[in-house]
């Protein structure tokens, strides 16, 4: 459980008083909000999408193995 007093967007260094405000801002470094996959792809040269696909494949494989 966390109880942060302020939130800084590490890529653009803008400071917010709440996590909700952070999640809604359009990052000056990427042009996207932290809720959009494009934000993370812009910061990782597209690697985020590959990591995301791998995470989904692991999750689906575990789900099938439980059936």
């Amino acid at each position, binding site marked *: 459980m966390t109880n942060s007093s302020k939130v800084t967007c590490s890529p653009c260094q803008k400071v917010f008083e709440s996590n909700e405000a952070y*999640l809604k801002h359009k990052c000056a470094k990427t042009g996207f909000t932290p809720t959009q*996959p494009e934000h*993370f792809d812009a*910061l990782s040269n597209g690697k985020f999408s590959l990591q995301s696909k791998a*995470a989904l494949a692991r*999750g689906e494989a575990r789900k099938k193995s439980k059936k």
Partner: protein
Amino acid sequence: MAATVQINEYNDVGEVKEANITNSNMGDVDDPNLDPVANPVIPGENTYEKYQTLEVTAMGGSSAIDNLKIWRTGALGGSAVHMTNARIADYAEKSYVQPIKTDSTQADQAMPTSEPVSADLGIGGALAGSLIAAGESDLLIHQIQTDAGDVAGSTSTMNFQYDEVS
């Protein structure tokens, strides 16, 4: 569309959140994305503890994020040890305390150096927990403890792995 996930770090007495950190450099200052060359650890002393979380910022149509696995790949310099609260058994969620550079009492297990066989960081206080909406994992705490004979730093990789269910 997929869930969007980032790694955060918490610092200072005010538990100030640095969202979506760009690295996990460790050194002689309680700062995110620190410069290890400007903030080296004196041989025999420790880095400041790191308090970090994995945060889902949007589910993106997926139903759950779970099975968090944390480990390091790559050797440390000299005979330094890397301690953490992550573990696959006897897990208990830890609360934030201002990071220290004396021996951590929160991080008392050796950091895994290969992928753990099962989750080693909890969600909602349980290794079997899952995020079904935007939110954060339990706190990952880790610290590097050096030996007086260690003379150089090192570069290694922290791995944060999760599973996603559609």
